[in-house]
């Protein structure tokens, strides 16, 4: 028999060690399957190639795009930040359902909010793996570098990532409520918001009623801001502040809904039963 183990910290509140353990768990999983890692690279690259050629065509045929080369490419890549951000949360969450592991996780000292933080951390990792190579690939292929956006790019990246996190947490809550029957939401939900997010066109193109909806989405403010930077060379502080405020609401509401769903799952006994 082995000797009793030393415990570094068992009673403290938040534990970076437990957060690290969960991030490690998802990194192990990512490392264990090259198709999963490839999938992270695949869609951003494909999207970038598809829209790159489209924008090349439009640049010679459209005064809109020719005013700021790369606007469609930048939009594609930034949209992918939000999509990957949401998917990064949802897929790590789904991994636990697929492996029927929730019962073990939540008899350990892991707090639900530490789990949420590990999901968000892995979302960032997944986004970086997916989007950065696509952005670099655009440079030799189309002579366009999204990094020319400069500091605003960091703001756009963070704002879209946080919106993706908020959506990912709400989808996680729906998965906790409905189980794997709601799995397809992880892949589809964000596209419902694409038209109103005004990714490839100004918000003013939308019908008036949909414009009201658009202004409740951080993404619409981000893409308006992106166009302002690219077309007018100015950083629109009003859109930035609106997006940041909306993001805060999305993240707080998303986290609250997730934690409520988690408690309800404990009332129903779903943590032990969830799986394929």
């Amino acid at each position, binding site marked *: 028999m082995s000797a009793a183990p030393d415990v570094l910290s068992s009673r403290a509140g938040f534990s970076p060690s437990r957060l690290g353990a969960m991030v490690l768990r998802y990194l192990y999983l990512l490392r264990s399957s090259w198709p999963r890692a490839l999938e992270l690279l695949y869609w951003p690259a494909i999207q970038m190639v598809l829209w790159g050629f489209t924008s090349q065509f439009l640049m010679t045929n459209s005064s809109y795009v020719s005013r700021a080369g790369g606007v469609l490419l930048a939009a594609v890549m930034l949209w992918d930040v939000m999509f990957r951000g949401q998917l990064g949360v949802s897929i790590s969450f789904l991994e636990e359902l697929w492996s029927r592991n929730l019962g073990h*996780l939540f008899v350990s000292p892991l707090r639900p909010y530490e789990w949420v933080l590990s999901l968000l951390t892995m979302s960032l990792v997944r986004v970086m793996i997916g989007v950065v190579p696509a952005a670099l690939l655009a440079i030799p292929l189309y002579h366009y570098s999204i990094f020319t956006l400069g500091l605003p790019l960091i703001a756009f990246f963070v704002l879209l990532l946080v919106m993706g996190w908020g959506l990912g947490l709400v989808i996680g809550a729906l998965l906790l409520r409905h189980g794997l029957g709601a799995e397809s939401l992880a892949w589809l939900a964000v596209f419902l918001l694409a038209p109103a997010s005004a990714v490839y066109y100004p918000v003013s193109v939308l019908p008036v009623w949909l414009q009201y909806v658009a202004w409740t989405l951080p993404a619409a403010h981000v893409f308006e801001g992106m166009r302002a930077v690219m077309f007018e060379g100015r950083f629109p502080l009003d859109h930035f502040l609106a997006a940041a405020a909306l993001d805060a609401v999305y993240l707080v509401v998303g986290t609250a809904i997730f934690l409520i769903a988690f408690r309800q799952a404990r009332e129903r006994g779903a943590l032990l039963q969830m799986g394929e």
Partner: protein
Amino acid sequence: MSHPVIEVAAVTKRFGETLAVDAVGFAVPRGVTAALLGGNGAGKTTTLSMLLGLLLPTAGHIRIFGEDMLRHRYRVLPRMNFSSPYVDLPHRLTVRENLTVYGRLYGLAHLAARIESLTRDLQIAEFLDRQTGKLSAGQKTRVALAKALINEPELLLLDEPTASLDPDTGDWVRGYLETYQRRSGATILLASHNMNEVERLCSEVMMMRKGRIVDRGSPRELIDRYGRDTLEQVFLDIARAGERFDPREAAQ
């Protein structure tokens, strides 16, 4: 006077109209191996889930190590652990990776040495770098046991610890649990419908039927009370009794 490790008072769990656990109450003293014994649907796993905090009771109180499990769960969880054949470890992670993740979740120092000694004890060291999903049922059970013992728990909750194992492996697991209990002085509560296992491991048995504890005692006391030769016969008496089951009548 020290508290019992587990104190359960009038715990009830309803799922809609279904009464899964009905005002159950029991206590398990420190260092005892006890069992919840009953047929399918008797409420054993539901009771274990409430003890673990995975399931919230509709009514009643649960204290573990003297702490209210509903209010101070995180004070208690580092001192306990759990294993069940119905809750998997991630299949695509290797044994070492799974144990590393759980060791870190429990905040263990010297984790590599802990994993090495534990896997040596459980005879799974040779599988450390194999994916957990590619192991046999017996190997998986030992890996699950390694996860359950990674933090050297003072309280170990086991749901059907030898389900689906061949007799040889089942016997090995029971032997290991006996040795662990003797060495560590841990308290063990297991849910089972394996009578041999319960007779061999447990000094206290709570017989469950339709969400209630209908009788309790040591295996020998129960066998004598019902005038039977084995615990299995006692189990069958209780399981096959009519709706108005009365343990006193059944025991006469």
